[in-house]
């Protein structure tokens, strides 16, 4: 509300309850580039020592570049699959007539709010049975499939807002439904595709449990598993290093967040994945 004046007690109250978040993320940055004294939290000296993981391997933890490469491949593949499959299925569910359409829609809606992490045990067993266990392909397919109901749901929502008149005009002019979709409707929902791409990319980039369980070997390691490995290493208690790796890992996510905050807020607020 624009006509409100600053109410200092309220602002101070909010600052206090927000303090843990503000402090944690401020010190994520501060500690990554400073020497840390064990009995203080204030930086004493600027240093790039914490960023040594970029040029040398932390013993026993492999190369961060392998992890970065895997994470990039993983997140981009998830985006590609989710966006392509959701934009076709979403269109069919929004605009085409076919048998069992409303049953499909009910299933999508049901799965969309289904807690997929409960399936991890049977997915693990199934991947081992079909030989996709411990492969990047396997985790990509699983992650993309689990994101699909959400993606289809979002895309259907975007298609629903495209006026029917556009398609009717196209059909009247003799275009096929496929041409209508490709040439007339798809350009209308580019904002939706952009939003879904960003969302799936961030979901893929952050994913931890699936790769941890389904692709445990070192060559497949993603950034999340790499960082968790460092933090849980009993012989390593170097928060400067952890935070430098963390900052390195979080940069793309924060970039997307800063530049597309409003769009994302719409998706998060749309009563979707929690």
């Amino acid at each position: 509300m624009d006509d409100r004046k600053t109410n200092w007690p309220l602002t101070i109250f909010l600052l206090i309850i927000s303090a843990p978040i503000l402090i944690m993320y401020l010190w994520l940055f501060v500690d990554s580039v400073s020497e840390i004294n064990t009995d203080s939290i204030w930086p004493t000296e600027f240093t790039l020592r914490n960023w040594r993981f970029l040029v040398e391997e932390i013993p026993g933890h492999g190369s961060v570049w392998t992890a970065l490469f895997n994470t990039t491949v993983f997140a981009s593949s998830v985006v590609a699959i989710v966006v392509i499959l959701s934009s076709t299925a979403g269109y069919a569910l929004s605009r085409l007539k076919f048998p069992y359409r409303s049953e499909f829609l009910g299933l999508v809606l049901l799965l969309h709010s289904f807690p997929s992490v409960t399936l991890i045990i049977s997915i693990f067993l199934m991947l081992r049975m079909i030989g996709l266990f411990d492969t990047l392909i396997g985790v990509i397919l699983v992650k993309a499939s689990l994101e699909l109901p959400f993606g289809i749901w979002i895309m259907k929502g975007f298609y629903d807002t495209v006026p029917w008149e556009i398609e009717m005009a196209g059909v009247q002019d003799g275009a096929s439904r496929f041409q209508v979709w490709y040439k007339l409707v798809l350009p209308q929902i580019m904002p939706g595709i952009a939003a879904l791409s960003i969302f799936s990319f961030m979901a893929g980039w952050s994913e931890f449990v699936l790769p941890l369980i389904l692709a445990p070997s070192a060559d497949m390691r993603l950034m999340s598993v790499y960082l968790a490995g460092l933090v849980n290493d009993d012989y390593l208690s170097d928060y400067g290093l952890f935070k430098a790796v963390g900052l390195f890992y979080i940069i793309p996510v924060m970039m997307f967040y800063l530049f597309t905050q409003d769009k994302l807020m719409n998706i998060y607020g749309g009563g979707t994945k929690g």
Partner: protein
Amino acid sequence: MRGIRRFLPALFMLPASLSVTLFFVIPVFMTFVFSFTTMSSDTGILGSRYIVSEATIRTLKDGDLDAALVRQLDSRVFAVNEAGLAALRKSNLKPTVVKEIEEKLSGKVYASEKQLFAALKGLSNRPRSFKDRKMVSKAVVQTLKNREFTTPKEFRAGLASIGIEVTDDVFDVLLEVANTSWKWTTGNYSELMASDFTWKILANTAFYVVLTLFFNVGLALVLALVTFYMPSGQSKFFRAVWLIPRVSPSVIYIMLWRWLSFDGGFMSYILGFFGVQPENWLNEFPWTFVIMANGFVGASMGMIIFASAVVAIPADVLHAAEVDGAYPWQQVRRIILPLMAWPILFITTYQTLSLMTSFEYILLLTDGGPGFFTTEVWALNAYHTALSNYYGNLRYGFGATLAVVLVAVGIAMSLIYLRLFDFKKLVAEPQIEN
């Protein structure tokens, strides 16, 4: 074009349906199937395996099989067969020696090493040294113990290789006992009902869900209302701040909580000013941190939903209240909260579901500790049972049984969630005839 038009829906739906079916719908179904098996890392996942192990022998000794047969199963024999000869040819023995063994002893089976050595002595090109004779015995020794057979036929051949011929009845008994592959069972469910841990974990889960729910729904309401009464710049800033935990990868977010609470971290430093000794606060108050870490993430979703619900309340109503002299807190109590009953119900339902089934943050923060089962909740316990524990034996079947409970909760809650939408409107018929 008619053809394409007819198949367009199938073409558009198929890839997504296939992928969702394979990795989403079938796993739901398979969770139930796996919960009725004894699958574990010991039994393996695929096919059958027949192994005569120490444990098998012990079981057989207690059974009513012929004791001599059991001893024979446990024993070693020395059989000069193709496999043994092949091993001899690869060894350092003189070819003439091997050749004579092949000619004279092929197909012979000796019950002990002594008998084998006696037979070797009778050869003209006999192995001279004890070491050479040992080499022969090592090459031709046969035992059933700990060998893996994948079919009954192979198993029978294995028996034959140590000179055991049995009747079909006896063979069936042996098969049954030696079979270490997984079996169908309802035992997982009875174990679940009988186990004391079940109640401990159930209590933990209830504690965790209820407290976190209060924490994050309450916090979300406070945030939505406070930011509503702020200048738009400030409220935008605070909402952005509260979304950071949600967009952060979980590993980073939890790493920061661990930094905040460890003995060289922020809390210990601040408390130091009040004369409190540095402490690993996470170990002292594990539940507090588990609830806060989950609550801070959960609050953001409620905040957004509640904030948009507050904005949707007609400004006239609030203005009228203001004119009538209502204080902001009276507006909140009498007007805003009653109008938000529906979003609050929605968020509560949704958060209950995700709290009951998620374990990622607890796994990263405390891993169910410190100590034994202190912060172990149901979903985390399923993960530990089936996929990661210190005992070595991963019990897939029992883990799946624990997951079945979660899947059932998930389905029930999704159905409730489904009812919250106006389903009829969502499935409105398309306006262009195909």
